[in-house]
C-alpha cells in the first residue's frame, strides 16, 4: 500500500508543480496586488483595504454587476438544471426520436460562447433578425424590437442565450440514470407504478448527488460568463446586463486599474467558494442516501 502511495505521489507531482506555477503563484500575486493601487507602467502602491471598501460603498456598477451575477446564478442553478433533468428523464424513455433529440440538443453547447453570441446578434437583429422576421409574418408589419438594447428586454434576451441549453446537465443525469439497477424499475412496475411514479419516487431521489453536482457546475459557470455578454450587449444598455467578469475586464483593460480589478477578482473567488460550499451543504454531496 505504501509503495502505491509512493507511485501515486510521483505521478501527481508534475500536475502539482504545474498547478503551483500556473495557479498558486497567480493567486498569490492576485491577492497581494488587490491591496494596491496598480496600473500599467506604474509600480503597485500599497493602499490597504481601500479597494474593498470602495467596492461596497462607492461603486454602483459593482453592486449592479453583483446583483446581476446573483440572479443569473439563481436562474442557472434552478431553471437550467430543471430543464436538463426533465430532458434527461424524457430521453430515458428511449422513444424513437431520442438519439436525434440528444444530438440536436447538444449543438448549442459544443459551439463556442463567442460564436453563440454572434449567432444571437443576428437572430435578434431588429432589422433582419429571424425572430422579428417571423413576428412580422404574423401581421405585425413594422415590428422591430431591439431585443438586446431595449431596457425592457435586454436582460431576458441575454439570459436566453444560455438558460435553455442544458445538454451537459442532461448528459450527466442520463449517465447516472443508466447506472441505476434495472431490478429497481422492474420491482416498481410489478408493484403497479407508472413511469411518472418511477421517475418521481425512484429515479429523482437517486439523482441527488449528480443534480447537486450539476447545480454547482451551472451556478459557478455564471462566475465566468464573459464571452456571450461581450459579443452581445457589452454589459449595456447602461449596466443592465453587466456581470462581475465583464466588470473585471472593464476595470482592468479599459480603466487600466489592475489593483481594483484584482480586488474584485479576489471577491469573485471567495464568492465562488462560498457558493460551492452552500450547494454542497444543501445537496449533502458525497453522503449516502438514508
Amino acid at each position: 500500500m505504501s509503495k502505491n502511495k509512493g507511485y501515486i505521489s510521483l505521478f501527481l507531482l508534475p500536475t502539482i508543480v504545474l498547478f503551483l506555477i500556473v495557479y498558486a503563484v497567480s493567486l498569490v500575486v492576485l491577492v497581494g496586488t488587490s491591496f494596491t493601487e496598480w496600473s500599467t507602467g506604474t509600480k503597485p502602491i500599497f493602499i490597504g483595504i481601500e479597494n474593498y471598501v470602495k467596492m461596497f460603498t462607492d461603486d454602483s456598477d459593482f453592486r449592479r454587476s453583483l446583483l446581476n451575477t446573483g440572479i443569473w446564478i439563481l436562474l442557472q442553478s434552478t431553471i437550467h438544471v430543471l430543464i436538463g433533468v426533465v430532458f434527461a428523464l424524457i430521453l430515458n424513455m428511449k422513444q424513437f426520436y431520442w438519439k436525434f433529440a440528444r444530438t440536436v440538443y447538444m449543438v448549442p453547447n459544443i459551439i463556442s460562447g463567442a460564436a453563440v453570441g454572434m449567432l444571437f446578434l443576428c437572430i435578434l437583429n431588429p432589422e433582419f433578425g429571424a425572430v422579428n422576421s417571423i413576428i412580422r409574418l404574423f401581421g405585425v408589419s413594422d415590428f422591430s424590437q431591439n431585443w438586446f438594447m431595449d431596457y425592457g428586454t435586454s436582460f431576458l434576451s441575454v439570459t436566453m442565450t444560455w438558460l435553455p441549453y442544458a445538454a451537459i446537465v442532461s448528459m450527466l443525469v442520463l449517465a447516472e440514470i443508466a447506472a441505476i439497477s434495472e431490478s429497481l424499475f422492474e420491482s416498481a412496475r410489478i408493484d403497479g407504478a407508472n413511469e411518472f411514479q418511477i421517475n418521481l419516487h425512484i429515479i429523482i431521489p437517486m439523482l441527488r448527488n449528480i443534480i447537486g453536482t450539476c447545480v454547482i457546475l451551472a451556478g459557478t459557470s455564471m462566475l465566468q460568463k464573459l464571452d456571450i455578454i461581450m459579443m452581445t450587449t457589452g454589459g449595456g444598455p447602461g449596466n443592465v446586463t453587466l456581470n462581475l467578469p465583464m466588470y473585471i475586464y472593464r476595470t482592468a483593460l479599459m480603466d487600466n486599474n489592475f489593483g481594483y480589478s484584482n480586488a474584485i477578482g479576489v471577491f469573485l473567488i471567495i464568492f465562488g467558494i462560498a457558493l460551492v460550499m452552500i450547494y454542497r451543504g444543501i445537496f449533502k454531496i458525497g453522503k449516502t442516501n438514508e
Partner: protein
Amino acid sequence: MNKSIIKSCLSMTMVVAMTASLIACGTNGTSTDTKAADTQVADTTKVETKAPVKLTYPTYRVGTHASAAFEKEQLAKFNEKFGKEIEVVVEEIPSDTAYNDKLKILAASGDLPDVVMGKNGINEILIKGNLATPFNEYMDKDAEWKSEIGDAALASNTRDGKIWSISDQKQIVGYFYNKEMFEKAGIKPAETWDEFMTNCDKLKAAGFTPLAMMTGENAWTTNLLLAAIVGSSDAGNKFMNTLHPTSFETPEMVAGLKQIQVMLQKYTTKDALGAVYANAANNFCQSKAAIIANGPWMIGDFSDKTKSPEGFDKKVGISTYPGNGSFSTYEVGYMIGSKTQEAKDAAAKFIKYKTSIEGQSIALELGNVNPLSDKVQPSDAFKQKYPLFVETINVGNKSTLNYQVFDSLVFPNVTDAWKSLYPELAFDKATAEEIAKKLTDTSAKNK
C-alpha cells in the same frame, strides 16, 4: 525482483517525460546553435551568415480588415528588400479590440512586441510607463525620413519634445451621402446643422432612412457626427482639439448629445443601437440609409461587388460637415517596444519602410489611405478607379474647420463607455446632461 525494478524504472521515466513535456511547452524555439555554427565560418563570409534580427509584429490588419491588402503588400516588399537582415514575425490578431486588449496585457507584463501600433490609448500606456523608445535619435540622423513624414505629423505625436510614434496616415474624414436619395428628396449637403436636421426630415418624408449610425464597438459613425457637431463652435472646436478632456459637461457637448439623441430616436436605422461597424457600413452600401460619416478607406467598398450593388460607387458623394468642417488628424502610428538596441534599430528600419514614400504609396493605392507626404500622389489608374478619393482630398483642402476624432482625444474607458451610454440616451433613461456627467466620471476612473 526484476519486474519490480523494471516497473520502478518505467514509472520514473514516465514521470520525467511528463515533467519535461510540461516545462518544454513554455520554452522559446529559437536556437543559438545555428548562430554558433555560423561564427565558425571563414572571416570573408562573416557578414553574410549573420542571423537576421527577429522582430515581433502583431497586427489587426488581417482578413477582411480594410487595411489588410496594403499591410500584406508592405510586408512582402519589406521582406524582399530587407528579409536577409530582419525577419518579421507577424502575429495576426482578428480585431482591433482583441489587439488593444492583448497589447495592454503585454504592456502590463512587460512583454511588449518590437513594433506596436499605438492607437486607442496604447500609446498613452506606453508613454506613461516609459515602455517605448522615442524616435528623436533616428529622426536626427535621417533627414530624408523626417521629410517623408513631415513636421506636422511628427509634431502630432510629440510630447515634451519626444517623438513617441511615427504616423502612417493622415485622416481626412467628411461624410458620404447617396446622391440619388438626396436628389429624390430635393436636398443638397447641408451648410448648417439646422439644415442638416431639416434634410433628415426631408429624407424621411421621401421614404428614406437618413443616417447609418452605430452605437456598438467604439460607436464610430455616431461619434463622428457628435464630434462634428461639438467642433463646429469656437469653444467646441477647442474642446475637439484638446487631448484627454477631463470634463464633458460643456454647453457644446450637451447640445451635441441632445442632437444625437434626436438622430438616434428619429433619423437612423432600427438596428443602430448596439450595431457594430459592419451593420452601419452595410446599411449605407445597401442603400438602406442615405448618409454615413466615415473615412476614405470605405471608398473601395462602394465598388466591391461583395459589399455593394453594381454601380453604387457612382451614386456616392462626399461632403464636409455643416460649418465647412472635417476631421483632419494624423494617426498615432507605430511605436518601438523593443528592449535591445539591435531590435530597436531593426524596428526603426521596419517602421521607416512602412512610412516611407514607397510604404505610403502602397497604403494609398491598396487601402485608400491619405498619405503624409505631398510627394505621394495617386496614380492615374487610381484616380480613374476611385474619383471619390480625389474628392476626399478636396474636402480636406476646402474645409475651414478642423477637429479630431473622439478616439484620439479621450481615454480608452470613455471610448468603451459610449456603447452603454448611447442606449440610455436613445431610450430617454438619461438626459444629455446626465450622459455628459457619466462621461466625466468615466474619464476620472482612468488610471
